[in-house]
Structures are given as structure tokens and as C-alpha cells.
């Protein structure tokens, strides 16, 4: 019989979790509650004696100083409604797993197969509530019904039924190792039904290619000899669906595109990826010649560049949007621990040195009606922030850089970008560690977590829009500790050269990882029945494609296998030999001794003709606002500082450990009160060296409303200028592109596909145009192309978004510059010219406009500024530097001033302006978001030298830092147009998100 152990806080101990829930009930659900207390419940489904149960409850399960325990006796009392929330069967329960392990240590024997511990939380709510209110609290706040179950009891019912009955959320499935075949000799409609019902996300063309393959007489013959029928097995069809999914295959980026540029001129583009992204890197590397620092680009899980002679730098940024829309906490947690596996699975493996993350949400204070399936943006915000917090912090990887971006359209799908950098020795035992190979005969080994039904169809599901029937099983919850244990073991195994090849199990599970590895050597033979399972009853195809987390796949030479397995055991990591790599040319899956899939690699990996996608650009024309000049813009500046895109994100950032590993040099917050927003991060990954890694990023989805070309150009420029501002070197810098788009493929549901595809083409053109001038190779990236919500009536498409991450080096991190002004009397310089470019600015957005004059990036001018500034920084001439982005000069000046605790006096008449003089106005000079601009302060005695360094670029001295902590800006006419105390400006900037 299962037992319930309930852990309560002693009466005198405060319950911060309960207090937080109380605040959230009041704040977000607008219900009055008097009190919320919480109880942790462990349901122990194991054969333990009464004495053992007491030991467990009194020992690892409770803290005698602050908690009491109660065994099989309800502890709850003094409430009006009780809500108990636990996981649904099969959902990862990390605490339950640790609890089970603790019992094992305590009793000196591990739990038996089938035994387990399951956790749930009781919320005891007091207040004048109705049953409906309690229901609203349960479903609107406490429970995500997709992965959790709940029950509500009022005090009377609770008493009458003697508490909450034990419930064991164990997966109960009939053991079935069945393999089915699917008849493809059917009508086209039927083929599509098979694809749809099976969440295969295969198009009719793809289904017909598969159909044709199975009709091939040679194939039929061969299958017959293996005892396989003519029709594909479910294992085969699923493996193909994973391999061919948009998520894994990037079909849109490899498509043949016919691009009409709007003037009637058309262009044929064979693969955006090859034509722009790969070409950028190839051309940059060719131009760099022997200074080329790229080591491994586009072919591994992450990009690798040289850091110095002894170390190489690895970087990858991923998205995890669809899962985060369904289960924000689990989706985002899986996003971060998932991207950790990319650098870890690159080359022979890298130590992870930092994370970055960028979230795009709708307004958390959104008050309008939302389509039914969508979670409120606030729940997404809370869940994502917490998921990444747990994933990053628990993994011991500092989160050093990030952003929060807001736009209403992200209600349709939030964007959750997670990045991780790693460091690997340049060589291990004499071999370059960014390279790896597999030799036929090497053993297929899987390490880490076990396989369950979680994460089945993740890859294919994210290749479709979100809809009401999106599968529950697509969601996984990450477990940072299982992964950390695995990494602790594998990094030591790497240094002993116990394996030859490593890669991660992400989207598509084993079918993708082993499928890709098989290409290295030419085949594999794997027995799915050997895979360790979380619970019995998985069909072979489920084992093959499950995206259950925390797993790596390796190729281990037979002569090293004993040492590898022995070491894994010592480190408490599960490792299983699943089969052998071969050179048969075949992806050969067995279940026991029966063949369940037999797919030629040549068909799996090359059998797909490119999609044909039309693209037609049509420049949108928005209303051009006529903004009347005002005598004073102080109110506008404060309103901008309080906008969601500009305001302080400190309440979120402080929840992320940004200093673990000890290498933090430029932190997310800086300045006299440690609260000014840094432009980029500097980290010293090697503690006895002062070489720094610099990382920054740019993102400006709003500009897509005018032109995605400029959106991309500005994102690239913003990423680079943030990087340069703190001291990143232009001589060793690389970019990483993450495209998040709405579906750009013309279809019934997407009649505006050609326009969206044209936006994608234009963004790619910008990538090439700017990165080649900046001599910035692209080393890795990712695309997520179906960021739409559609429930049959409402369609919400996200604004096309490029996140451009920049990573590189600074030789001496002790020269890093931060954004806070340093002392009164310093001179203020504006680097770069300002133009009438208010289009899609934060300022116009506040006024309810988009406009048309989107900022244009002048790559050559930008490069000149960055080079000159970099030299000045290296010479120690710069006291502070802040990049100008959202909100323009006014916002940058305010932030620099209040971060430094000094005032600033600026004169707009001195601002370098480009364009028609008639366009020059105080509004433009204050709020235009023209690219490539930096606001620097310089000690008076270094001013001359600084000006000499900047000579030949557009720049001007526009004012000085003052002892009086006030921002004072003179307009063109000489009158003061902004005048506000630092304290007021800072308060406006800190207010909006401070309580979230």
C-alpha cells in the first residue's frame, strides 16, 4: 500500500512559497485571500516497514529545525480550501527521484523495480472563496493541467473523507513491443491522414517519395530476404518523419526560392543556408587567410573557434518555443539543459562556461481575451523565467547575458532562446578536440537518463503550428542534476580518451543522434530492446524517437568499453551498449533479434528534393506620423524608461547566478549601486589568465514591420556594438544567427506566405552584406520556422525575429569598460551619426505609430567607429561607454547617468547629424534609433587623445558629466528640453517589472 508522508512547516516558521502564491492570487486573479500555507507530500510506493517510514520522514524528507512530518495522517488544518497538485503519470518528477535515492542510501538497499516516490504540493487557502474561485486558483495559477493533476477539497469534505487519499501516478501501460506496418498503397488523402494522425508532419510529396521507395523492386527483394514485408514498419516511418522534419532538416532554409524583389525582378535562390549563411563564413574565412580562427563551423552541434593556442571556444544558441508555450517551466528548463548538451556534444566535448538567454513575451499585464489554448503571458513569463533559473543555476553555469523583449504578438508563441558557450582544450592526447570520428566496429553507447514516453514527437510537433490538439507527450521536463552527473563523468572520460565520438540526444531522440552518427562511418546496427526504460510498455518506435532528456550518444572503441562502463558505474551514471556502428550503408534497427527498421542511409539522408517556395517582397507603407515639437520631453523620456522593452529587468536577472565559476568581469549590472544595465558580458574562463571571452547580442523584431532586411542589419549591428562597447576585439569575433519566423510557406492557412518568405530572404541578404564587411564569420545557428498560433479562427503570427549573438575575445579583460559614468567633469562623446530614423522606434510605438524610416546601417561607417573606439579603449582612454538602442540618445544618457550616480549636461545642437537638415529636430536627436552609435565618457585630460583616436569617424563632444545628479539636455534652439533628477529617472526605469 502506498504511504503519504506530509511535511509541514512549524507554525512559527514563515512560508515564503505560500506568501508568494497569496500575492499572485491577489495580483493576477484579483481574489482576496487571507492566508496560503503549503505542505510537501511524498507518496511512497514501496515496501517499507513502519519504522523505516519514520526514519525516512524524520531524516532526508524533513528538516527538524523548521518542519514536522506526518505519516499516513493528514496534516492539513485551518483552511477553507485545499488544493493538491501533483504530476501526471510519466512526467519527470525530479524531487521524487531524489527522494527514492535517499531512501536507498538510508536503508542500504535501492528501491525495487516498480517502486517509487511521487511528490505533490498541498496549498491550504484561507479566505472567503467559492468553489469556483478555488477552481480558478487551481487552474489559473497552481496547476498546469497538461502535465499536472489537482484536486480541490473544501474543509468539510476534507474532514468527511479523512484527508486526501494516496494516489500513485505510475505509468500503467500494457507491455507491448509490437511493431506495426503501415500500408502506403492508398489514396493521397489517406496518405495525408496517416501523416496528420501520426503527427508525422510529412507533406504529400514526402509521403509519395516514401511510397516510391517501398515500391522499388530492389527494396522489396531485400526486405523479403530479411523477413520484412513490403510496407514500412512504424519504426521506419517514424524515423523518416524525424529525420525529414523541418526541425531536423531545415527544409525551408534548403528550399529553392523564387524571390521577386517587388520591382518585378526575380531571382532564383537555391538554399538560403548555402547562399547566404555558409557563404558568409566561407567568404570571411577566405578573406582572413592565415588569420582564420574558425575551427569547426556548421557541421557539429555547435560552432568552434580558436581562443588561444591551448583552448578553443564553443558556442551555440537554440530555441525552445513550442514546448515553452505549452509548459513554460518544463519547456524552458528543457531548453537550457538541452542547449547545454550542444557544446558538450561538440568535438570530443567542452566544459560549459556560460549561458545566455533571450525571451520574447507578450505583456505580462495583458488584459484582453486570449484564444482558449493559450496560457496568459504572465504565466509564460513566470514559468519560463523559473525554468531557465533552475536549469542554469543548478547546472553551475553562469547566466551572463540576455534580454527580455515584449510584443503583443508573442502571445501566439513566446520565443525562448537559450545559449551556452564551452571551452575545450585545443588538443586531447595529441588530437584536435574539435574533431571526432567513428570507426566501424565502435560500440553504440547511450549515457544518462532513461527513455520514457516524454518528448515523443517533439521534433515533428514543433514543425507545425500550435493548435488545440498539440500533443501532451511532446513536453519534457529537464533534470539538471542527472545531466550534471553525466557531464562530470563524461568530461573525465574525455580526458582519458575513452570514447571517439559524442553527440547529444535532442530532437528526434536516438533516431536523429544515431542516424547522424551512422553517416560518419556508414551504418549502424542497434537493438532497441537494450535501451533502458523509465517504465515498461514502450513500443520500439517510441524508444527510437523519444526525446527523454539528459542523454548523450557515444561511439566507444571496443577495447575501451570495459574501462568506460566501469567508470560510468563509479560515477553513478547509467551507460548502455545498444549496438555497433557498421559500414553497411544501412540504418538497421532490431528489437531483440527481429529487424524492425532497415533503411538505406542514402535514402534517409538524401532522399528529399528541395521544397519550392515563392517569395514576393512588397514594401509596406505605414502612416507617417506628424509629431508636433514640444517645449519639454522629460515626460516622454520617463515614459520610455518605463516601457517594457526598456525598463530594468533586474528582478529577473538577479534570479540567475551570473558569477559561478569565478570568471565574471563585466556583470549584467554595474555602476555605483550595482543596478545599471551592462551592454555585454566579459568572462575569464581560465582563472589564472586575464584573457576574456566577450558575449553580446542584438534583437529588434519591431523593425520587421518595415523591412526584415533592416531588422537583421540592426540586430547584427546591435550585437556587435554591444560587444565592442565593453572591449570585445574585432580581430577575433564570430556571429551566431537564430531565426524565429512565422510560417513563410504559401498555403491555404498562410496566404501571405510569399511576403513572409521575402522577409526571410531579405534578412538573409542582410546577414551576408553586413557580416562580410564586419569580417564576422557565422559559426552556428538555428531556425524555428513555425511560430504561429491558429485555432481555426484566430491566427497570431510572431514578428519575424533574428537573434544575433556575438562572441569573441579581449586579450586583457582588465581593460573592459562599463556603461556607468565615472566622475564629474568627464567629457561626453557621441560616436556615430544620428538620422531621422524613428521608424518602428520605441518612441513611435509609445505614440501609437510604426512609421517608415527604419534605421539603416552603414556598415563601413560602423566599422570605422568600432575600430577607432576599440583602439581608444585599448589605450585606456575610455571611462564609460553605453550603446544607443531602444529609446535612442535620451535613454542611453539617462541610463549612463543614473548608473554612475552623476548628472549629465548635453547639447543636442552638437549631435552629428546625417541627412536632410530639414529632418533635424529635438525629437529625432533624442529618440531616433539610428544604428552604430555609442555614448562614451572620457576624462578631460584624455579628451584630446581620444579625439585623435576617433579622427576620421563621425563623432562629437556633446556635453559633460556633472556633479549634480540631474540629466539636463539642451535642444537645438538652446532651451532645456529634458531636465530630470537621476532618482526620478531611475525610479521610472525600475518600476514596471520590479515585483515580478
Amino acid at each position: 500500500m502506498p504511504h503519504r508522508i506530509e511535511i509541514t512547516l512549524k507554525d512559527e516558521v514563515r512560508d515564503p512559497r505560500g506568501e508568494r502564491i497569496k500575492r499572485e492570487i491577489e495580483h493576477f486573479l484579483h481574489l482576496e485571500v487571507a492566508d496560503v500555507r503549503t505542505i510537501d507530500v511524498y507518496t511512497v510506493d514501496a515496501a517499507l516497514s513502519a519504522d523505516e517510514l519514520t526514519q525516512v520522514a524524520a531524516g532526508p524528507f524533513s528538516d527538524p529545525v523548521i518542519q514536522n512530518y506526518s505519516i499516513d495522517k493528514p496534516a492539513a488544518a485551518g483552511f477553507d480550501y485545499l488544493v493538491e497538485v501533483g504530476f501526471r503519470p510519466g512526467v519527470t518528477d525530479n524531487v521524487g527521484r531524489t527522494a527514492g535515492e535517499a531512501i536507498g542510501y538510508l536503508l542500504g538497499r535501492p528501491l525495487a523495480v516498480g517502486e517509487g516516490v511521487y511528490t505533490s504540493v498541498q496549498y491550504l487557502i484561507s479566505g472567503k472563496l467559492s468553489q469556483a474561485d478555488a477552481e480558478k486558483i487551481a487552474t489559473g495559477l497552481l496547476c498546469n493541467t497538461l502535465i499536472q493533476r489537482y484536486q480541490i477539497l473544501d474543509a468539510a469534505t476534507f474532514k468527511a473523507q479523512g484527508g486526501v487519499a494516496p494516489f500513485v501516478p505510475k505509468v500503467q501501460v500494457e507491455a507491448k513491443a509490437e511493431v506495426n506496418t503501415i500500408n502506403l498503397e492508398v489514396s493521397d488523402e489517406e496518405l495525408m491522414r496517416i501523416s496528420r494522425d501520426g503527427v508525422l508532419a510529412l507533406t504529400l510529396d514526402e509521403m509519395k517519395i516514401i511510397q516510391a521507395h517501398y515500391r522499388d523492386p530492389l527494396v522489396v527483394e531485400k526486405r523479403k530476404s530479411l523477413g520484412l514485408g513490403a510496407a514500412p514498419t512504424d519504426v521506419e516511418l517514424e524515423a523518416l518523419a524525424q529525420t525529414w522534419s523541418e526541425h531536423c532538416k531545415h527544409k525551408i532554409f534548403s528550399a529553392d526560392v523564387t524571390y521577386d524583389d517587388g520591382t518585378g525582378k526575380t531571382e532564383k535562390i537555391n538554399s538560403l543556408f548555402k547562399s547566404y549563411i555558409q557563404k558568409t563564413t566561407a567568404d570571411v574565412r577566405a578573406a582572413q587567410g592565415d588569420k582564420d580562427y574558425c575551427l569547426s563551423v556548421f557541421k557539429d552541434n555547435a560552432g568552434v573557434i580558436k581562443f588561444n593556442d591551448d583552448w578553443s571556444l564553443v558556442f551555440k544558441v537554440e530555441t525552445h518555443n513550442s514546448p515553452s508555450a505549452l509548459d513554460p517551466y518544463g519547456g524552458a528548463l528543457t531548453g537550457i539543459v538541452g542547449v547545454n548538451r550542444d557544446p558538450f556534444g561538440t568535438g570530443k566535448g567542452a566544459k560549459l562556461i556560460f549561458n545566455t538567454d533571450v525571451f520574447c513575451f507578450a505583456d505580462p499585464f495583458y488584459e484582453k481575451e486570449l484564444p482558449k489554448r493559450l496560457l496568459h503571458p504572465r504565466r509564460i513569463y513566470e514559468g519560463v523565467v523559473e525554468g531557465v533559473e533552475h536549469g542554469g543555476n543548478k547546472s553551475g553555469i553562469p547566466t551572463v547575458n540576455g534580454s527580455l523583449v515584449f510584443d503583443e504578438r508573442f502571445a501566439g508563441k513566446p520565443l525562448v532562446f537559450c545559449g551556452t558557450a564551452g571551452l575545450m582544450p585545443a588538443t586531447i592526447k595529441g588530437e584536435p578536440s574539435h574533431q571526432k570520428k567513428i570507426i566501424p566496429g565502435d560500440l553504440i553507447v547511450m549515457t544518462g537518463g532513461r527513455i520514457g514516453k516524454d518528448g515523443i514527437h517533439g521534433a515533428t510537433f514543433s514543425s507545425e503550428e500550435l493548435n488545440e490538439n498539440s500533443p501532451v507527450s511532446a513536453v519534457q521536463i529537464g533534470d539538471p542534476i542527472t545531466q550534471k552527473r553525466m557531464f562530470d563523468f563524461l568530461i573525465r572520460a574525455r580526458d582519458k580518451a575513452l570514447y571517439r565520438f559524442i553527440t547529444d540526444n535532442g530532437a528526434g531522440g536516438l533516431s536523429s543522434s544515431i542516424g547522424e552518427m551512422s553517416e560518419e562511418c556508414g551504418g549502424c546496427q542497434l537493438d532497441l530492446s537494450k535501451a533502458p526504460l523509465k517504465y515498461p510498455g514502450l513500443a520500439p518506435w517510441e524508444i527510437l524517437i523519444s526525446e527523454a532528456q539528459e542523454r548523450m550518444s557515444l561511439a566507444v572503441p571496443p577495447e575501451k568499453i570495459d574501462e568506460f562502463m566501469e567508470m560510468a558505474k563509479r560515477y553513478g551514471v547509467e551507460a548502455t551498449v545498444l549496438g555497433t556502428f557498421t559500414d553497411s550503408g544501412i540504418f538497421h534497427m532490431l528489437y531483440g533479434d527481429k529487424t524492425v527498421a532497415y533503411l538505406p542511409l542514402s535514402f534517409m539522408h538524401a532522399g528529399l528534393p528541395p521544397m519550392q517556395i515563392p517569395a514576393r517582397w512588397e514594401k509596406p507603407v505605414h502612416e507617417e506620423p506628424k509629431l508636433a515639437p514640444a517645449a519639454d520631453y522629460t515626460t516622454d523620456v520617463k515614459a520610455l524608461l518605463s516601457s517594457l522593452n526598456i525598463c530594468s529587468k533586474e528582478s529577473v536577472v538577479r534570479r540567475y547566478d551570473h558569477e559561478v565559476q569565478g570568471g565574471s568581469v563585466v556583470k549584467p549590472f554595474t555602476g555605483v549601486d550595482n543596478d545599471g544595465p551592462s551592454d555585454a558580458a566579459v568572462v575569464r574562463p581560465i582563472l589564472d589568465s586575464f584573457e576574456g571571452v566577450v558575449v553580446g547580442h542584438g534583437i529588434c523584431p519591431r523593425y520587421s514591420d518595415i523591412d526584415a532586411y533592416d531588422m537583421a542589419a540592426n540586430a547584427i549591428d546591435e550585437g556587435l556594438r554591444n560587444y565592442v562597447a565593453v572591449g570585445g576585439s574585432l580581430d577575433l569575433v564570430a556571429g551566431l544567427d537564430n531565426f524565429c519566423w512565422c510560417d513563410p510557406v504559401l498555403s491555404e492557412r498562410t496566404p501571405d506566405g510569399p511576403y513572409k518568405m521575402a522577409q526571410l530572404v531579405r534578412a538573409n541578404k542582410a546577414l551576408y552584406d553586413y557580416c562580410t564587411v564586419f569580417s564576422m564569420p557565422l559559426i552556428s545557428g538555428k531556425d524555428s520556422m513555425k511560430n504561429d498560433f491558429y485555432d481555426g479562427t484566430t491566427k497570431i503570427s510572431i514578428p519575424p525575429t533574428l537573434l544575433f549573438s556575438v562572441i569573441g575575445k579581449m586579450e586583457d579583460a582588465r581593460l573592459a569598460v562599463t556603461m556607468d559614468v565615472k566622475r564629474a567633469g568627464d567629457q561626453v562623446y557621441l560616436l556615430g551619426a544620428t538620422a531621422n530614423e524613428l521608424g518602428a522606434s520605441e518612441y513611435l510605438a509609445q505614440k501609437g505609430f510604426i512609421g517608415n524610416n527604419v534605421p539603416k546601417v552603414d556598415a563601413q561607417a560602423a566599422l570605422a567607429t568600432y575600430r577607432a573606439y576599440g583602439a581608444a579603449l585599448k589605450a585606456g582612454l575610455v571611462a564609460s561607454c553605453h550603446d544607443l538602442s531602444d529609446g535612442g540618445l535620451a535613454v542611453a544618457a539617462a541610463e549612463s547617468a543614473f548608473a554612475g550616480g552623476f548628472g549629465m549636461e548635453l547639447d543636442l545642437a552638437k549631435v552629428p547629424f546625417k541627412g536632410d537638415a530639414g529632418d533635424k529636430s529635438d525629437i529625432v536627436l533624442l529618440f531616433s534609433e539610428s544604428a552604430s552609435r555609442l555614448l562614451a565618457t572620457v576624462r578631460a585630460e584624455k579628451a584630446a587623445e581620444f579625439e585623435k583616436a576617433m579622427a576620421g569617424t563621425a563623432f562629437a563632444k556633446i556635453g559633460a558629466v556633472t556633479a549634480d545628479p540631474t540629466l539636463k539636455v539642451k535642444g537645438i534652439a538652446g532651451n532645456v528640453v529634458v531636465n530630470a533628477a537621476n532618482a526620478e529617472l531611475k525610479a521610472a526605469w525600475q518600476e514596471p517589472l520590479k515585483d515580478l
Partner: protein
Amino acid sequence: MTKAKALVITGNGTNCETEAAHACKLGGFDEARIAHIAELLTGEVSLDDYHFLNLTGGFLDGDDLGSAKAQANRLRYAAVEGKEERLVDQITRFIADGKLILGVCNGFQLLVKMGMLPALSGNYLNQTATLTYNEGGRFQDRWCYLKVDADSPSLYTRGIEGGVYLPVRHGEGKFLVDDAKTLETIEAKHLSCLKYSDKNYTAPTMDFPENPNGSVNAIAGICDETGRIMGLMPHPEAFVHRTQHPRWTREELPEEGEGLIFFKNAAKYVKKNF
């Protein structure tokens, strides 16, 4: 002279082993070994060969049962292979031998939950205090001013004038005791060697954010009566060079960070006494 040897235990979610070992080296230890807990449980590494044990920051077992609870349970019950002893026996012998233990953050949580701090009357296996969820209910990464009790027996804080400025990075740092008497004894014996304070180190404070977690009596770190075992929530290993300070680009700071003194004092003690 004996080689001063420091051991940093890692595994199961410990995260700060590299910088802790680095700080030991900078502080004057001749050797700073990072050992995975598996190496201790298999007997490859024995505590007996070291002088200074670092239990450092991280999320042992994900803090799943409450911070460091699962590891406290593991250390208490897990046996060392091939020897007739549990790991906890090695640790108590280590203490009896007059050696040093510093627990930082998760390591402090572990020491407290095993009963090794404050260990009043030398009872090292009886839990009388705890570290639990911050009053604000959130993880916090921020720098704090820590007033040092000059009369404390802690050998680690010797020579610190006024206080030290260090980062805290935790979700469960609120120090609480089982009863008023424990607290009285801790204070009477000056075991609460570090307290969250204002920036001039004038007085302990209960105000957020200076006191990031609401600890009783603003306690940030305590030691046992011998002064050889100490635990603290702030991270001394995270401030051993000026570039780690959040305001190093605007203040005149010495090269050496303020946290290094903890390790220097430990090395000095070992070299003098072993």
C-alpha cells in the same frame, strides 16, 4: 615543513569546485585537489591525506529535498568501499584530528544539516540550525557587506577589519535555529562571525537587500567553538581578484580580492600546526 593540502569535493551538483581550488592555491596551499565524491566512496581519495576540506557551492542533488538534504543523508549512510567505515566516520576523524573545514553556500547548508555547525559542545552530528528559503521567496545573486565579529574564534576571519564585501547566490540562505537557547549560545560564544550589514559595517541589518534572505540576527556565517569549522552563505572564492568586484571599473581597488583572506588564513594555520 608539511605540504599544505586542500581538498575540494565535487559531484552530485557541486558547482564551485574550480574557483574554490583556485582560491586555495592563491591562498598558499601547496596542493588543491578536486575530488569527485565517487573517488571518496571508492576509497581512491581519503580525507586523511588532506588538511583543509572545502565543501563548496552548488545544488547538491538539485536541492530536491531542501538544500543539501540528500547529500547530508548520503554522507551519513554511504559506506567507503573496501573499508569498514562510512564517509561520515572519515569526516569526524578529520575534525578530531584538528583539521579545517570551510563550507560555502551549499557547503554551509550541508554542514548545518549534518549537524557539524554550530556543533555546540562539540556534538558534530546533531542538527540544531538550518538554512531555508529566502524571505523574499526568490534566488538572489547580489553582493553583500558582511560585518565581522572580531571576537569570533573563527580562524578564517582573522585580521579582517570591519568586514568583507562578497557575493551571495542562493535561494535558501535564511539562517534559523531550533530554539532561543541555541541562538543565545551562538551569540554568547561569538560563533556568528559574519553578519549582513550596511556598507560601513556599523551594524547588522534585517533590511532587504542588504540582508538578502532574512536570516535571524542577520547571520551570514558561523563557526564551531574551535574556529576551525566555518560555514557561510557568501562566496569568498568568488572575490580573489579585483576584476570580480562589481564596481572594479570605477573604484580604486587592490589587486587581491577581499575573499582571499579566508584561504590565506587557512593555509597559514595548516602550515603552522601540521
